[in-house]
């Protein structure tokens, strides 16, 4: 029984560390990409996956089962909210000026 708890703790720490690594890579992509749409892509993909891994690692460590379900529900909400926001921002960036931001390094 003690071995199972240690394995679950090791898996959760590994998930949290990889989730934080995705956060850092998303920020690096936000700063280094030349284009608005490339930055949007890097931000949403890496932040959704980073938050998902962190939430999964934390749901494994949660003291009660319902708290783990609530943490995963927060991740699902952020997933849908971030996808909607990314689509709206991309549509606005596309329609503000027709030729702006396509692969131009400003």
């Amino acid at each position, binding site marked *: 029984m003690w071995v199972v708890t240690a394995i679950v*703790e090791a898996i959760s*720490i590994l998930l*949290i*560390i990889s*989730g*934080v690594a995705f*956060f*850092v890579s*998303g*920020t690096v992509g*936000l*700063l280094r990409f030349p284009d*608005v749409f490339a*930055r*949007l892509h890097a*931000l*949403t993909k890496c*932040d*959704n996956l*980073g*938050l998902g891994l*962190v*939430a999964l690692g*934390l749901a494994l*460590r*949660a*003291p009660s089962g319902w*708290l783990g379900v*609530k*943490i995963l*529900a*927060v991740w699902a*909400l*952020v997933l849908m*909210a*971030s996808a*909607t*926001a*990314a689509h*709206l*921002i*991309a*549509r*606005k*960036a596309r*329609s*503000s000026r027709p030729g*702006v*931001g396509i692969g131009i390094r*400003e």
Partner: protein
Amino acid sequence: MDTILVVAVFVVLISVLAGLIQVWRGPTPADRMLSALLFGTGGVAILLLLAEVAAQPAFVDVALVLAILALIVSVAFVRNDRLETESET
């Protein structure tokens, strides 16, 4: 185990603050809105990690409210500019 979580909180905080550089640098307003999106998602991650470190389950509810507020802010950003450009289309 808690020290790893505290280090993770600081790493996410530093990466969210590094996203502020995009607010200063971004040529279009959509770039600045991307940093606000990063603030929202990073804040949710920091709150979820703090809920484990401080053993306070109430932080998960605060993270829920922050996620909803981030969505409302981005809808308000898009809608505000739509009202200004409606005379052109």
